């Protein structure tokens, strides 16, 4: 973040601006989306960290640590959780309409819970299968592709990912906006399950302007689906929607997945 911007945000939040400067800053906040973005991030970081380092947070941590110690020693293990489900109510009188309704409702709820619970696992499978079927073997590109790229592809197809990465990196160092180098570097990292680096290269690929066919967004989504941590699936869905909206490379597959996950 630009130091001048931070200085202005800091001065504004600390009430160290004259009335005139304040008015200008507030007008800038309304009209300059970049300044607004930086301002929001600054406040988010400051608020979150103030919360994290607050005495309240420390006191709660202490309470929970004490309770954790107490109960991890004391609590007897209950292995009957599977059988003693308190939520299942017994129907006392044989009322068949109620029984059938209850069974139907239960079936629908179990089905819904199944789809909700297992959707993340499914999306990981979908992405892994797609990767295994479509991206573990790359076709040698035609035309004026650099020789290093061809060598990289050959190494990739032999699953010699470290060598492949070296070839692709060589091209990338010479030309950081080489779309093939970015794509293949991302795929190589993905093959090695280094999701952070894979995502970063696909992100750079996505940002390239004027590319006739850009699979960057679609590959970003695949990376998140394969990693499947935290909010990955939610974010992958957003990316897939964007692929479909832009009719970008991978849009057909993206549409199919959006119906499934």
């Amino acid at each position, binding site marked *: *973040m630009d130091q001048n911007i931070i200085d202005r945000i800091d001065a504004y939040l600390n009430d160290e601006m004259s009335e005139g400067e304040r008015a200008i800053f507030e007008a800038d906040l309304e009209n300059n989306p970049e300044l607004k973005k930086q301002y929001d991030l600054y406040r988010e970081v400051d608020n*979150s*960290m103030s919360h994290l380092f607050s005495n309240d947070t420390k006191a709660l941590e202490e*309470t929970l640590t004490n309770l954790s110690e107490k109960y991890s020693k004391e*609590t007897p293990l209950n292995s009957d959780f*599977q059988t003693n489900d308190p939520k299942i109510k017994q129907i006392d009188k044989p009322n068949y309409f109620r029984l059938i309704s209850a069974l139907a409702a239960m079936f629908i*709820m179990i089905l819904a819970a199944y789809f909700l619970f297992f959707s993340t696992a499914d999306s990981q499978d979908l992405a892994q299968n797609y990767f295994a079927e479509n991206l573990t073997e790359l076709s040698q590109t035609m035309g004026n592709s650099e020789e290093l790229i061809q060598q990289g592809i050959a190494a990739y197809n032999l699953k010699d990912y470290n060598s492949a990465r070296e070839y692709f990196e060589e091209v990338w160092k010479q030309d950081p906006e080489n779309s093939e180098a970015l794509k293949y570097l991302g795929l190589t990292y993905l093959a090695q399950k280094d999701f952070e*680096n894979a995502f970063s290269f696909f992100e750079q690929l996505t940002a390239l302007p004027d590319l006739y066919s850009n699979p960057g967004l679609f590959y970003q989504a695949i990376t998140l689906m394969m990693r499947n941590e935290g909010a990955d699936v939610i974010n992958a869905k957003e990316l897939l929607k964007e692929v479909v909206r832009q009719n970008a490379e991978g849009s057909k597959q993206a549409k199919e997945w959006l119906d499934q996950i």
Partner: protein
Amino acid sequence: MPHPDQKYIEALIKNDKVLLDELYKKYFSKIKWMVLKNNGSEEDAADLFQESLMGIYHKAKLSDFELTCPLDAFLYMICKKKWLNVLAKRKNHGVTNLEDQEYNLGEDSFRLADECQLHDERLSLLKSKLTELGESCQELLKLSWEGNSMEEVAKMMDFTYGYARKKKSECMAKLTKLIQTSPIFKTLKW
């Protein structure tokens, strides 16, 4: 309408030791059982439970938190997700008992769980990027976030007030830059 178990969320916010003791008594053993049956230790279970509660607390304090299902079910869902992530990182595939509980939760509960995770991930990124700053930056920012005024921070660090202010601004610029250039920044929806 919040679920009656919302009282436990309030207990986390207020550090109500009596209610939190009740919370542990009622819900900890189930999580412990899940962890022990799935390649974890008692220590793992205690850490997992505590981290999940802290995650709920962070979300409740930093934005909002309305529980619409029993805490029992919500905690199980949060802990299960976290534990799967731990196992994935440990590359342990011997998961056998994680799908034994069937809860019929509304979409809002799933959304709330995802939001909790998003908050957790944001805070983890902030904490990890803070450690990449120089020592004096870390110390100055921590003192300021601990609630000290900049006059007090300047005094504690033996700086002039003007220098401490300037330094804080520089440190924040470095920190926000580190955060924004992290590959996962965009996935955290800031």
